[in-house]
């Protein structure tokens, strides 16, 4: 490995710094009182508190799952602080009133939101350690009737919508981490697209984790009414810490008749250092319900960060002719572990799903694709196409594929393909012949390998993702 490549690989995490903001941190530990405290801090109505308590009691009866192909020391759930909020002085009227320290954080991360918002025409709902600080472009969206705000705001301003849909796609007792999230979630995004409205811009949120030792429990709820369509982006970076941080988010999508939801994620949380110390545990439950006829839910993800990524963005295709899509690139390096994939549950007639998953492992990392395609007896004419390819870089890493295919209807057609390969010497030689150096060649080959997925990303994310990938992997080959 040349010195240049070596430097590239061992480049320290660019976004690793801690902003010193006086945080309002709840005492460590989890019990009913903490849940009541979170609920009280957020001024929540009674029904939400009982939702949380129900989830908490459910959680107490559950045990941590162990079937996944990731390994980590046991999490002490009593050693986590479940609430941390930047101290609010007063309600903010404009950007100028935002804590300058906070603004500097965003500056450092290279996403000055006013600029970014203006340049890209993106409304950014900024989540800074659990509390939504400010929301931009709200008015513009409000004009067409779109509600885009933090979920705590939605609880106050649109309780009927939140109450109607919250927990309907991911029930409180769905799995261990979803139950935990339902009990202690602090904030997240809420988006409601009314009937027939095409969202005029891409919606996006940025998640950051700050305050050492506080887990982040985000909750996202997106509802697209009949004929509505929305594209939602989620991007993540987090400061560097040595103790592992748990992140257990829940995302619920609901698409009614003819609605279309596209959810894109670029995840680049701190992955731990080259020895596998530190890094985020990203245990997320993401699920979309294609409830109405001809509805469509599309997940696109680029997973490059986190010490452990463990998530399966899923689609429940209930409406007839509904469509589910999953496009994923998961990159692991050093000692990262990723167990990710999707579930496509076909219930309605003529439902279609596509799965394209690309896994790239380097260093000592392990990445797994785990997917389920289930065709229920009611899903006449259902169609699935899955493709999951892995690429290994180096002989210390692992790539795994666990596709589950369950078919109970003979009218269905299911296809699954998987392959594993590496970057060939001959490919590199071909590039070298044409005067392209190893790093650049690898970057190009990898971008080609992931092209099917990147094409699904909105423009600025595609650029970011391409950069991220070369940044993560260049130099792993040498």
């Amino acid at each position, binding site marked *: 490995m040349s010195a240049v490549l070596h430097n590239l690989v061992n480049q320290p995490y660019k976004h690793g710094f801690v902003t010193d903001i006086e945080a309002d941190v709840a005492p460590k530990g989890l019990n009913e009182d903490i849940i009541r405290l979170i609920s009280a801090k957020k001024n929540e109505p009674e029904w939400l508190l009982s939702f949380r308590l129900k989830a908490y009691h459910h959680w107490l009866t559950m045990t941590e799952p162990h079937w996944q192909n990731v390994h980590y020391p046991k999490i002490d759930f009593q050693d986590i602080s479940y609430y941390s909020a930047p101290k609010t002085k007063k309600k903010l009227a404009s950007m100028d009133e935002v804590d300058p320290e906070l603004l500097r954080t965003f500056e450092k991360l290279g996403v000055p939101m006013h600029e970014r918002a203006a340049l890209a025409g993106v409304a950014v709902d900024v989540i800074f350690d659990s509390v939504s600080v400010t929301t931009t472009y709200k008015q513009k969206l409000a004009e067409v009737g779109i509600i885009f705000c933090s979920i705590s705001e939605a609880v106050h301003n649109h309780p009927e919508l939140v109450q109607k849909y919250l927990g309907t796609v991911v029930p409180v007792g769905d799995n261990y981490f979803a139950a935990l999230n339902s009990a202690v979630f602090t904030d997240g995004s809420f988006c409601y697209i009314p009937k027939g409205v095409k969202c005029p811009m891409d919606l996006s949120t940025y998640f950051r984790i700050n305050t050492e030792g506080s887990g982040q429990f985000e909750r996202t709820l997106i509802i697209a009414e009949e004929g509505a369509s929305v594209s939602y982006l989620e991007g993540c970076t987090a400061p560097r810490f040595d103790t592992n941080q748990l992140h257990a988010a829940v995302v619920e999508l609901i698409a009614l008749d003819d609605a279309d939801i596209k959810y894109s994620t670029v995840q680049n949380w701190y992955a731990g250092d080259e020895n596998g110390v530190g890094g985020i545990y990203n245990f997320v439950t993401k699920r979309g319900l294609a409830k109405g006829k001809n509805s469509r839910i599309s997940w696109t993800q680029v997973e490059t960060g986190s010490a452990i990524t463990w998530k399966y963005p899923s689609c429940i295709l209930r409406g007839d002719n509904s469509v589910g899509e999953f496009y994923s690139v998961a990159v692991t390096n050093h000692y990262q572990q990723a167990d990710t994939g999707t579930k496509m549950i076909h219930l309605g007639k003529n439902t279609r799903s596509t799965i394209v998953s690309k896994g790239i492992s380097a260093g000592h990392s392990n990445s797994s694709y785990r997917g389920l395609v289930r065709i229920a007896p009611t899903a006449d004419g259902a169609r699935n196409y899955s493709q999951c390819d892995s690429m290994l870089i180096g002989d210390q890493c692992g790539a795994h594929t666990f*596709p589950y*295919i369950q078919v109970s209807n003979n009218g269905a057609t299911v*296809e699954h393909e998987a392959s*594993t390969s*590496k970057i060939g010497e001959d490919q590199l030689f071909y590039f070298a012949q044409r005067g392209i150096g190893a790093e650049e060649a690898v970057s190009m080959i990898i971008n080609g390998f992931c092209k099917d997925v990147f094409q699904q990303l909105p423009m600025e994310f595609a650029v970011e993702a391409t950069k991220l990938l070369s940044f993560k992997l260049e130099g792993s080959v040498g």
Partner: protein
Amino acid sequence: MQAFDHVSAQHLPTRRDEEWRFTDISPLTQLVYRPAHSQCELRLSDLTPWLLQEAKNRLVFVDGHYAEHLSVIEDSSHLIIGNLQVLATSHATALESQLGRHASCEHNVFTALNTAFLNDGAIIIVPKHTVVAEPIHLLFVATQSEVTNYPRCLLLGETGSQVTLIEDYVSLSQAPYITNSVTEISLNANAHAKHIRIQRDSMQAFHLASCAALLAHASRYQAVSVSLGAQISRYNLDVRLADEAAECAIDGLALIGDRQLADTHTCIDHSKANGVSRQQHKCIVDDSAHAVFNGKIIVHPHAQRTNSSQSSRNLLLSKTAQVDTKPQLEIFADDVKCAHGATVGQLDEEEIFYLQSRGLSAATARDLLTYAFGAEIIDRIPVTSLKQQLEQAVLSRTRRHL
């Protein structure tokens, strides 16, 4: 005794166990079947439908017990073949070092049970550089009802040897019984074995089987397994490519209807470099039957230049038929070529139309295509008479209109 400890240490698998997730064997747990007794009143004429003219050597086991009067051993000069009880003393060292060494009792309660109840079995040792041209036929006949049989086989292929082994499970009645069989195969360097396994138990039977094969340097293992019978059947095949340049080719066919359940779990373990494996598994599922396939391919670190392909193809013939398939790859080496694919579907309407345009009725076209789907696997069987028997069996299943 160790096997007994393993039995008592384990519980019967339920659907909560990942390895048994799709196969509910609870009907089995309600049965109390004692081991079969050794009385045998069969005559050779009873076995006519299953006899193979090509096979010079035939070992017949009735309800798991060796039936000497039905067996033929012609070739004992350059081949060691016989039942365990006879060979136990003369070949004690070879048997001691091999029997029970390949099929692990630790994670499979049924293998542990078989080992614990081990009474007799088929032993085949092919000496160095010996080529056994004619296939060896092991016929396991079930006659008693409501009993458990524990068939056992051990095949040792010494350096440079070649052999074809047919393991054949048949039944004289349609009675319920349990067959719990274990086969162990060990191939030394450059040895070559073809292993054909036919399961045509009674439709009321429960068939639980496992086979473990260990492949040494540059050895070759070719397996074809066909599963037609049994109410619930489960076949575990573990192939370990323990040294460089070993090769295996595994083909499987499950043809089931009614309320049958056929479960095939295979694990191909590439431990060393330059291994080659190819696998194709097909299921034809009719009525309310349920087929399960779980194919795992593991490529260990340093098993570089492994070339492995796997395909699982499933044909659903009725609305209530069900398939669960899970082709699995676990890869820890970078310079490998691994691919797997899985398809589930019904007969292609265009193909049916094509045949109709050539004057076949729609029903006949369907039968023909179904037969052709299965015939691809049966064609890989190198024994003509057996192939014909199976073709007839498949035809009678698929031919409702031909």
